[in-house]
C-alpha cells in the first residue's frame, strides 16, 4: 500500500507518539560512570589496567550507539592507593558529579572505607576485584572471584596431584587470614593435614626463616597467599634456596602477573586458579586480547581484574537496557530476575541475585619452568554459593555487612 501525503503525516504522528511513549532514556544525556582506581602508589601495578579495560568497554559500547542510545561518559579519579581518597572521591562522585554507577576499589580496605558512603547516598558500586568474600550489601555488585570459587577447585586438585600435607603462607590481614581459613576447611574436608601456617605482615620482604620452616616441615605443596610487591620477593628467595615444592595460589599470577615480572624459574611449578588471564586460548579470549592491545599497545598485562571490569561495564549496559532506566531499584529488580548473564572473554558469567556476586569459569593455570602458562583443568560455571547458603539474600533484605566463615550472617 502506498502512503499518501496525508497517510505519511499520520504515520509520522504515530511513530512520534510511539517514540515519546518509550522510556525516556534517549533524551537524558550521557550515562556517567565514576571510576575510582589506584593509578599511583603501591597498588598501581595491578590496577592501571582496570581503567584501560573500562575505557575499552566504553569505547566499544559508544561506537555501537551507547547504552540505549545514550553515550557513556567516564569520570575518573586517581585514588593514589590511599583509603582516605576513596572516601573523599566516593563522596564527590556521588554528591557532586552525580554519576549513575561507580567502579571502585582494589584492596578490601578501600572497599570497606567507601561502603558506608555508598550506603548513605544509595550509590551503586561495582567491585571488580577478587577478595576474601562475604560482602552482603545491595549497593555493591561484585564481579571479583571469591574463595569458594578459587579454593574449592584448587585445593582438592592439588591434594590429589601432590599429596595431603599442606603448608600455608598468607599475608597477615583479613584477605590472607580468611583465605587461610578457607584452605584449612577444605583441606580438612578432603582428609589432608595442615603441616604449617605462617602469617606474614604486609611489607615484609625477607623470608629466610620462613624458607627454613617450610624445608623442615613435611609439606607436599605450599599455598602462597602473598600480597604486595614486598611479599612477592618470597618467590625469588625460595627459588634461590631451592625449596622445590609446588605452589598453589589464588592471588598471584592472575592479578600481579608475577610470571612476567620475575625471572624464571622462580615461579616454576605454581598452580593458580583464576577467572581470566591473557594466556587463555579461547576464541573469545584471543579476540578480547587483540582488541585490548589494539587500543593499548603498551599494556604490560591483561589480568583478571581487567577482564572483570570489562565484563562489569557490559553487565551494567545489559541491566540498564532491560530496566529501561538507570534507577538503582529498577536495576536491582532486573538482577533479582536471576538471568543477567554475559558472554565475555572468560566465557559465560552470570550474576547471582541473592549475593550480587558473579559466577565464574575457573581456569587452573600452571606456570612452567620458563614461566609459560598451560591450563591442565577448567571448571565451568562455579557459583559464589557461600553467601547464599549462609543466609544472605539481598532480594529480601539488606544487612550492608561483610561476613566471614567464622562470622556468618545471623540465623534468620
Amino acid at each position, binding site marked *: 500500500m502506498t502512503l499518501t501525503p496525508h497517510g505519511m503525516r499520520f504515520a509520522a504522528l504515530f511513530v512520534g507518539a510511539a517514540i515519546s511513549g518509550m522510556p525516556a532514556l534517549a533524551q537524558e544525556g550521557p550515562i556517567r560512570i565514576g571510576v575510582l582506581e589506584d593509578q599511583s602508589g603501591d597498588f598501581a601495578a595491578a590496577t592501571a589496567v582496570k581503567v584501560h579495560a573500562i575505557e575499552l568497554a566504553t569505547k566499544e559500547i559508544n561506537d555501537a550507539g551507547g547504552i540505549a542510545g545514550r553515550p557513556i561518559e567516564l569520570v575518573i579519579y586517581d585514588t593514589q592507593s590511599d583509603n582516605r581518597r576513596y572516601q573523599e572521591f566516593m563522596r564527590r562522585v556521588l554528591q557532586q558529579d552525580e554519576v549513575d554507577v561507580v567502579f571502585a576499589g582494589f584492596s578490601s580496605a578501600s572497599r570497606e572505607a567507601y561502603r558506608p558512603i555508598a550506603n548513605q547516598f544509595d550509590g551503586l558500586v561495582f567491585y571488580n576485584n577478587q577478595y576474601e568474600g562475604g560482602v552482603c550489601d545491595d549497593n555493591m555488585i561484585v564481579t571479583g572471584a571469591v574463595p569458594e570459587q578459587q579454593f574449592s577447585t584448587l585445593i582438592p586438585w592439588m591434594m590429589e596431584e601432590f599429596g595431603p600435607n599442606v603448608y600455608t603462607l598468607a599475608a597477615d*590481614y583479613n584477605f590472607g587470614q580468611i583465605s587461610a581459613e578457607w584452605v584449612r576447611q577444605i583441606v580438612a574436608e578432603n582428609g589432608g593435614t595442615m603441616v604449617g601456617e605462617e602469617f606474614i605482615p604486609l611489607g615484609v620482604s625477607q623470608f629466610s626463616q620462613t624458607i627454613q620452616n617450610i624445608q623442615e616441615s613435611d609439606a607436599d605443596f605450599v599455598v602462597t597467599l602473598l600480597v604486595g610487591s614486598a611479599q612477592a620477593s618470597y618467590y625469588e628467595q625460595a627459588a634461590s634456596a631451592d625449596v622445590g615444592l609446588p605452589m598453589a595460589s589464588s592471588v598471584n599470577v592472575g592479578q600481579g602477573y608475577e610470571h612476567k615480572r620475575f625471572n624464571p624459574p622462580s615461579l616454576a611449578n605454581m598452580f593458580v586458579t583464576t577467572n581470566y588471564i591473557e594466556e587463555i586460548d579461547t576464541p573469545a579470549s584471543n579476540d578480547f586480547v587483540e582488541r585490548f592491545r589494539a587500543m593499548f599497545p603498551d599494556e604490560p598485562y591483561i589480568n583478571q581484574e581487567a577482564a572483570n571490569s570489562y565484563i562489569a561495564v557490559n553487565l551494567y549496559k545489559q541491566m540498564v537496557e532491560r530496566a529501561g532506566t538507570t534507577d538503582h531499584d529498577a536495576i536491582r529488580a532486573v538482577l533479582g530476575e536471576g538471568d543477567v548473564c554475559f558472554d565475555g572473554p572468560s566465557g559465560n558469567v552470570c550474576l547471582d541475585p541473592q549475593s550480587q556476586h558473579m559466577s565464574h569459569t575457573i581456569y587452573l593455570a600452571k606456570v612452567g619452568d620458563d614461566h609459560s602458562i598451560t591450563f591442565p583443568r577448567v571448571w565451568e560455571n562455579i557459583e559464589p554459593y557461600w553467601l547464599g547458603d549462609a543466609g544472605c539474600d539481598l532480594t529480601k533484605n539488606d544487612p550492608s555487612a561483610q561476613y566471614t566463615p567464622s562470622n556468618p550472617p545471623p540465623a534468620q
Partner: protein
Amino acid sequence: MSNAPNTPEQISHSSRSTVSTWLARLEGPQTMGRGPAFWVAMAALVLAASCYPAFSDPYTIGNAAYFMVWTFMAMGLGIVWGYCGVLSFGQTAFFGLAGYAYGVVTINVGAAFGLTWLALVLSVAIGGAFALLIGYFMFYGRIKGVFIGIVTLSVTLVLETFMAQTAGPNWRIGDARLNGFNGMSGMPPLTVPWPGGDIVLYSGTALYFVLLAMVVVCYLGLRMLLNAPFGNVLVAIRENPERAEMLGYDIRLYQTLAFGLGGALAALSGTLYTAWGQYITPSSMGLTAAALPIVWVAVGGRRDITATLLGSILVIAGFQTLTIYGSQYALIVMGALLVFTVLVAPDGLIATAMDWIGRTLRRTKR
C-alpha cells in the same frame, strides 16, 4: 588592651579578673596578629565561612567539613613542633587510637541520648592520656632531638602492625570487631538528641557548622594558652632548653604537657574523622599517614598557630585539588612544593605570607 607582658603583680592584682586576664592573652608575643585590623579580618573570615553554605552545594560543604577535621591534628603538631620544638611522628598514633576508641564505644552503647558526644570526650581523653604516657616515657627519660621522632614513629608503626592483623573474630571489644586491615566500620556519626528526632551529623551543613564552631573555640583557646606563661615557657624550651632549666622550670613537665595536649588534639581529629566517615583503619597510622601532618604544618607554617591553622587547610585542599585535576602529576607537584617551601620559605608559606603582609602594612603606615 595593654600589650605589656603579664607580670606576677598584674596577675595577683585583685581588680584584674581572671576572665579579662585570659582575654588579654588572645594577643601576645607568641602569636601573630594583633590589633583591630587583624581581629576584624578574622571576624570577617568566620562570617564568610558561616555564610558559605548558602552559596555552595552539599558536596563542597561536606568536603570543607572534612578539611576542618584535620586541622586539630595540625594545630596539635604546631604546638608540639612549632612551639615546643619537638618533632613528633606520633600524631597519627593518637589519631588512630582515638578513632578506634570512638568506634568501640559507640558500637557498644549506641547513639541515643547524645552518647556519641560522651564517646567523643572519652576518646579524646584516651588519646590524650596515651600521649601523656608516651611523653612521660620520653621526656623523663631525657630523650631528645631526632630520637623523639624515631620513638614516636616506632610507636605508631607498632600500633599499625598490631592492628592490621586483628582480623579474626576473636579480636573484639564487646560488640565491636576490630577487623584488622579492612578497618572498623558501622559506628554511628555524631548524633544530637532532639525532641522531634535525633539530628545525625553526616557529612553536610550541620556537621560543617559544628566543626566550624569547634575550630574557632579551639583556635581562640590555644591562642590564650600560648600567650600565657605556659606558652612562654614552651618557647623558651624550644629556643634553649638548658637556659630554661637553669631558670628553674622543669622542662620535662612542660614538654610532657605540651605533648599530651598535642596528642589530645590529634585524638580529636581521629574521633571526628571516624564519625565523619564511619570508618577507621590501621593505615591511618602508617608511615605515609604519619608524615602527612608534618608536611602540612611545615608548608603552612609551624611557628605560629594562625599560620598552622590556615596553612594546613590550604595545603590539604590544595593537595586534593591537585589529585583531582593533576592526575598522575599530583604527587610530583606536591614533592616539588615541599622542596620549594623548605628552600624559599622555611617558616612555612602562610607564615611567610602573613609576615610579608604585616611588614607591607607597617611600611605603608609610615
